[in-house]
């Protein structure tokens, strides 16, 4: 039989037990503030449909085109108190949910093939109002109505355009809003909205020219706005547009269906 334990072993065991106790205690001591531990996990993200925070929804779905803070994007500035005063909730919700046909504004509602629930769209509409709307945005003035009531007169519109718009929009044909490719991508309502509410972020004045860049003192009348939109709409030229790229690439890349679609889009644009 061996001796149960050698003399050196006992001392060593004692040391090892001390060491183990110390190592076990160290992390426990660190755990004093458990929820403040650096490794304490964040709340798991739920399904994307559970997000209803406006800032998150806006930054994930809208910021790319409408700008990080609702300004300075290529598309309409939503952070424009005049726009938010002009448009009603139902329209704002409709554009967000169903998109604007014939333009680059896509439908975001699940019911229209998008990814957002109706609660999320409500959160976006309410969030835009809360974040960016201002009381008395028009300073007492009464703007022309948001929606076009009756079709305008393109000939009068041309006169009004020359009188009120061409002063700034006088660059070469490719660069102005009369460019037919531009007009093919923007709806009548879009033209109307910008004419009335302006785009302060890019110095486009509102209907009163009450903005940087405004030169005239007489505000546009509701009829002027109707007519200018009708005039710009009349400049859309679907035929020339549907043929251009096919020639450029020397192959019939544009289908019949697309031509028809494009033509109807250019003529329509009733939003």
């Amino acid at each position, binding site marked *: *039989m*061996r001796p*149960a334990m050698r003399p050196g*072993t006992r001392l*060593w065991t004692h040391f*090892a037990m001390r*060491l*183990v106790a110390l*190592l076990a205690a*160290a*992390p426990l001591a660190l*755990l004093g503030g*458990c929820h403040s*531990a*650096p*490794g304490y*996990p964040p*709340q*798991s*993200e*739920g*399904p*994307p449909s559970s997000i209803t925070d406006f800032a998150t929804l806006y*930054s*994930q779905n809208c*910021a*790319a*085109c409408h*700008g990080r803070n609702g300004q*300075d*994007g*290529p*598309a309409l500035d939503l952070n424009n108190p005049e726009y938010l005063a002009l448009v009603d909730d139902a329209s704002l919700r409709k554009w967000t949910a169903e998109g604007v046909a014939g*333009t*680059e504004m*896509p439908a975001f509602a699940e019911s229209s093939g998008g*990814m957002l629930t109706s609660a999320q769209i409500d959160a976006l509409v309410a969030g835009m109002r809360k974040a960016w709307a201002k009381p008395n945005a028009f300073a007492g003035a009464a703007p022309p109505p948001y929606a076009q009531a009756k079709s305008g007169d393109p000939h009068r519109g041309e006169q009004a355009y020359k009188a009120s718009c061409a002063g700034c929009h006088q660059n070469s044909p*490719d*660069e*102005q809003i009369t*460019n*037919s*490719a*531009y007009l*093919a*991508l*923007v709806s009548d309502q879009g033209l109307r909205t910008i004419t009335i509410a302006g785009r302060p972020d890019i110095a486009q004045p509102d209907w009163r020219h009450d903005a940087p860049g405004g030169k005239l003192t007489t505000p546009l009348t509701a009829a002027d706005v109707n007519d200018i939109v009708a005039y710009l709409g009349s400049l859309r030229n679907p035929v020339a*547009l*549907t043929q*251009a*790229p096919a020639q*450029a*690439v020397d*192959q019939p*890349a*544009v*289908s019949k269906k*697309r031509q028809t679609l*494009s033509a109807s*889009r250019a003529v329509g644009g009733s939003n």
Partner: protein
Amino acid sequence: MPRMKPSQRIYAWFEQRLQLEGPIADAAFHPVPRTTASWFYVFGSAAFTLFLLQVVTGILLALVYVPSAGEAWNSLNVLNHQIPLGWYLRALHGWGSNFMVAIVFIHMTQVFLFGAYKYPRELTWTFGVFLLILTLGMAFTGQVLRFDQDAYWGLGIGVSMVSRVPLIGGGLVHILLGGPIIAGATLARFFDLHVFVIPGLLLGFALLHIWMVLKLGVNEWPMPGRLVRRSTYVAEYNRLAHEDGIPFLPGAFWKDLAFSAAIVAAVAVCAYFFGPSGPGGPPDPAIIQTNPKPDFPFLWIFSILAYLPPALETPVILIAPILALLALFAVPFVAGEGEKSWTRRPVAVLAVALIAVAWGEFTQLAGTTPWSPHMEAWSSDPIPVHYLRNATPLVRQGANVFQEKQCRNCHSIGGLGGQRGPALDDVATRMTRDQMRFKVVTGGGNMPAFGKDLSPAEIEALVAYLSTLHPANERPAYTPSRPYTDTGSPAATPPPAASGSTP
């Protein structure tokens, strides 16, 4: 007979019946060559210690975890946020797993480089290979039990690999998933594997592995020139162990214990500072806004699969693992004798170096390579404001087209967006308008053709926007013959000037 204390009497009562003192003392104090008391010989015991840590933390986790497809994700969140220190328990188990996989690989590398698999330890190595497979099996089934999006899609990829097995692939998938799809039965099966089957096998193999280490002796430190021969090795080893030997305990064992303690402490510290892994988003296949990745032991496979040409997928997936395992099993039988020292085994050293570098590189690529388009970019990454300063209405519409048609998902601008295609911040210096129009319409290379998805006006607007993307002091690309073809006169349209650009 001298009087005994009560504690001694109790001990003697048990010892008379169990008779464990002799075998344990034999194992603990058996002589080993002095050179085996090395810090290089501590990884095996550390791996076993980590296994014990996993058993203890796993038992505690199983008190709360619900292995059902509907409840698993919620129970992980309960552990993280509602059970006191539940998150720390998950972190310990997760980091214990990471450390265990790493230590097992390090242990295997050390055994290989030290020639410790040679006669008479061939079977020890063979069981070690089984232990490696089982450890990786634990890591994979554990990743599945952390039932989130990564787990869901990782499992989907795993079973679709299994489904490629000829003839029986479909049957194997049914056995693994408990049906044709990932559903309630699936998690129960993986819970079974992770909690009963694999740990049971692991424990059995590990005990046999340790038994053989005790019986055959710890490998002596390899000396260059001291060759292993079947006829003489055992006698030489016994001479080393007895003439220049020390008792295993404490001579060598204290280093094992100290290293194991340090590793457990490292797990505890990592768990405290880095926390548990996930769970990520809920494992709902209807949620497509996800970018799943496997856990680190399997990232290299993720890379290799991504790089494989489609025609090679099935052969590589089905044959390569078998060849690799056969090679591992064959090592001690092919090279069971001869030189043990790595200083005289260049092929072995180079093989380890090659595998390590390849593994590291593939793992790194899996973490950094933009395999997928950036699916949120089109709606979330704004165009840099100064890119649109002084932009014409058509250019603004082009920017809208660029976002809405999801060009941004593959092409970054201002550092934001996908990286599947080239960044387009200065695309106008590389391509003329005609070239851009052609590329957008017809695609080419990796790029799909968008001719059927874009109206002519959209193409015009898009190209107008892209042609503004050049540095202010650099002229955009242009076709010198364009003025002739457009008007017949070279003076009509001067080449575009350098100024007037946006970025």
